[in-house]
């Protein structure tokens, strides 16, 4: 592995690259060697560390989305450790006597009282609490957007399917971790959330009520749920998340980062900046930027003002009872599901008006997300390693599927805010609910179609740009009196970005013959695969070839050439 850094393969691509340094170590370097040498004598770490420091990372803003997630998680860990010093995870009763006057003398749990204590009586307690909560929200936001980036650029393809699955599990755990933390202060809002969670669990067929009594240690709310959620929130889940996250990062290091297509970038190289010094400064600096932005938000924007909600009590409730945004899609599903889906037979109740949204949806979403790479791979039959990303427009059907999925998710998420929309947009909550019920089924198809058309149009525009260059806006009059618009040429670097993708066509069914020359019948699986392949690739737009470009140059108009690739797609294999 060490050879890669020293081999200086850049020679092949650019002649004027600086030679790799072969200087003897300076006095300073020898000194560090003295300190670090002790460690290296005992671990042999120099080799690995040296390799890591020379590792190359490609530069693109969208590659920082994962880093936002990682850094938000670290910030949540740091601020969370601070909070544990004062938070009391107990539902024991106490009477508040802290400095927040409107609650003084009110009976509450010790968890809630200690949260008030952190907010009002610990110096810097509220800023850390708000940093913790904002970091948690940003963590899940960044995880989701990072997944979007990986999905739409095809970065999940071989060899990264495994890391995609790890990432999906991480995303699911992040949500559970968030919910368990949101519930800890034991205020009226989070208590209502736990109450709803109890209702969800209770609807599990056969074992529901036993599950509830197991989770809550008896009847709801009991005194066990906060300590139990606490141990999950600060011990079990973080341990699993950090373990999986380490595997996630290690796989990125082993497989090396993907990169966008561009001049000089191939499937066999990584073009970017080495960790030492550029990436260390950029990525390290970015940690401070993310932390600083979260601190700034926490300084001026209030989040989860627990003192306003009051202590949890099963009798009161507040208007606008919502979970944090990442649980919104499940809560929204519950708001949209109609009541007639509950059935009673033979003395048993099956609540299909609750279960799909509350118990099934959450894991289902992540199972669907997790298996997607394997489904796509089966359809394309593509067994090669991919390290060059795809521009989303160059995989129109995948992009459209992704957008349709996001639409479904968003409809559910917005449904969770239907009451807030009703008061802020002056609409009827019932109309909003009816509209979103319809939108859940209709909107994904519309979005699929629109996205696919947009992708195909963008691809055609790319072809057009390559074939006819850029319209300069300059009109030239020939001596004969004819007019034409001058087209400016693309440099070969600009052109490469537009043509560097694979021509694709659907799989064709073909009678197979076994070793003895006997025809094997086509199976339903084959037909299915061919159908899906047609669905993915039947109207694929192909990249411009040099011959087409030459043809277009000879033929001044050549509009057919723009379309040519499209029809060429459906022939032979």
């Amino acid at each position, binding site marked *: 592995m060490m050879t890669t850094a020293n081999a200086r393969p850049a020679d092949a691509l650019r002649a004027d690259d600086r030679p790799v340094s072969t200087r003897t170590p300076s006095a300073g370097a020898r000194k560090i060697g003295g300190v670090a040498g002790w460690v290296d004598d005992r671990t042999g770490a120099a080799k690995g560390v040296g390799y890591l420091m020379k590792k190359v990372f490609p530069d693109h803003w969208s590659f920082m989305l994962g880093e936002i997630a990682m850094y938000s998680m670290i910030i949540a860990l740091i601020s969370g450790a601070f909070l544990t010093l004062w938070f009391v995870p107990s539902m024991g009763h106490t009477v508040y006597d802290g400095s927040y006057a409107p609650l003084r003398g009110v009976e509450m749990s010790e968890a809630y009282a200690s949260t008030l204590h952190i907010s009002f009586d610990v110096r810097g307690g509220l800023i850390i609490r708000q940093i913790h909560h904002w970091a948690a929200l940003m963590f899940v936001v960044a995880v989701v957007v990072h997944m979007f980036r990986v999905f739409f650029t095809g970065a999940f393809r071989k060899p990264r399917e495994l890391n995609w699955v790890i990432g999906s599990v991480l995303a699911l755990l992040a949500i559970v971790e968030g919910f368990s933390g949101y519930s800890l202060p034991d205020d009226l809002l989070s208590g209502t959330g736990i109450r709803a969670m109890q209702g969800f669990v209770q609807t599990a067929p056969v074992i529901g009520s036993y599950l509830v009594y197991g989770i809550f240690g008896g009847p709801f709310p009991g005194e066990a749920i906060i300590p139990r959620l606490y141990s999950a929130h600060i011990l079990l889940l973080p341990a699993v998340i950090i373990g999986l996250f380490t595997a996630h990062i290690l796989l990125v290091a082993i497989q090396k980062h993907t990169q966008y297509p561009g001049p000089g970038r191939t499937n066999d190289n990584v073009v970017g900046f080495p960790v030492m010094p550029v990436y260390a400064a950029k990525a390290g600096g970015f940690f401070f930027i993310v932390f600083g932005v979260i601190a700034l938000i926490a300084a001026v924007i*209030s989040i989860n003002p627990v003192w*306003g909600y009051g202590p949890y009590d099963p009798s009161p409730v507040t*208007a606008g009872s919502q979970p944090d*945004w990442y649980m919104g899609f499940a809560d929204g599903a519950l708001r949209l599901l109609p009541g007639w889906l509950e059935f009673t037979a033979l003395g048993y109740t099956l609540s299909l008006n609750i279960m799909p949204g509350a118990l099934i949806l959450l894991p289902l979403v992540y199972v669907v997300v997790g298996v997607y790479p394997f489904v796509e791979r089966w359809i394309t039959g593509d067994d090669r390693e991919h390290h060059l990303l795809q521009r989303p427009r160059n995989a129109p059907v995948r992009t459209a599927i992704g957008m349709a999925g996001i639409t479904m998710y968003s409809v559910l998420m917005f449904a969770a805010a239907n009451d807030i929309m009703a*008061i802020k947009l002056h609409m*009827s909550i019932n109309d909003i609910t009816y509209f979103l019920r319809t939108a859940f089924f209709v909107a994904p198809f519309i979005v699929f179609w629109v996205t696919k058309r947009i992708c195909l149009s963008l691809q055609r525009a790319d072809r057009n740009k390559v074939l006819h260059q850029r319209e300069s806006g300059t009109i030239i009059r020939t001596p004969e009196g004819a007019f034409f618009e001058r087209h400016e040429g693309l440099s070969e670097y600009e052109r490469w970005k537009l043509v560097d993708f694979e021509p694709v066509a659907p799989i064709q069914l073909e009678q197979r013959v076994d070793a003895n020359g006997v025809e094997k019948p086509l199976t339903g699986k084959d037909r299915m695969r061919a159908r899906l392949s047609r669905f993915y690739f039947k109207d694929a737009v192909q990249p411009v070839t040099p011959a087409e470009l030459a043809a277009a140059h000879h033929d001044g108009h050549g509009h057919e050439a723009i379309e040519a690739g499209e029809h060429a797609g459906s022939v032979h294999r």
Partner: protein
Amino acid sequence: MNALAARRRHPAAIGILLLIGLFLMGAAYAAIAPRPAEAAVSSATQVDEGKQLFLANCASCHGLNAEGRATGAGASVAGPALAGVGAAAVEFQMGTGRMPMRAPAAQAPRDDRIKFTEEQITAIGAYVASLAPGPSVPSEEAVDPARGDAVKGGELFRVNCAMCHNFAGAGGALTRGKYAPALTGVAPKDIYMAMETGPQSMPVFNDTNLTPEAKRDIIAFLTAVNEEPKAGGFTLGSLGPVSEGMFAWIFGLGIMVGCAIWLGNKAA
């Protein structure tokens, strides 16, 4: 004029023209629109004066004798019967600009453009109170937040009010376009009268349900919550996790992606 003519194709021209047109329309409407009746003859008693005002401004919906009027469509009413609602209801509905309603709607919104003088509202109140006994306008002392207990008020508020009006009094949605309005910036007297009379969708909290002292405690709590310093900064409307999530997506993510783009761009 030439300068004007030259600018007539300016992109902002249509907008400016529209604005001028709307302003002229508004001015013309203000000039010819029907005005609330002026105070009746001074010799009449307050009740008579109120009756005159009622007939001129309220009777079209509430009936000539305040007996209420149906719209003719199902059980819906143009205006409910007013016997027994008391002077407090009139004072609340007209003093907050909810009545007279400007247009048929799911609910009459609060409106700071109050069209009647205090004397006129008091007169109509006196007339409505003369129809049947009902709650009267509370004294200054009864609604003085300084005399209430905010802690007790908070407990009462959370059980009786928060499910509609939200934990911080930011308001909430009801069915079919109706809503519980925000309680910020509402005068203590109006809060008291709303509890007492149960305007529109709101249930009645009579003096046996919430005693006058309990009502004053609730007012004290709302005043305390309104006036307390914002411990953690801007409250995002006190709407709970929805506004916080929106902020994280739009501003939190927006700022960080902006920084990432700057980071990934080559320096000039």
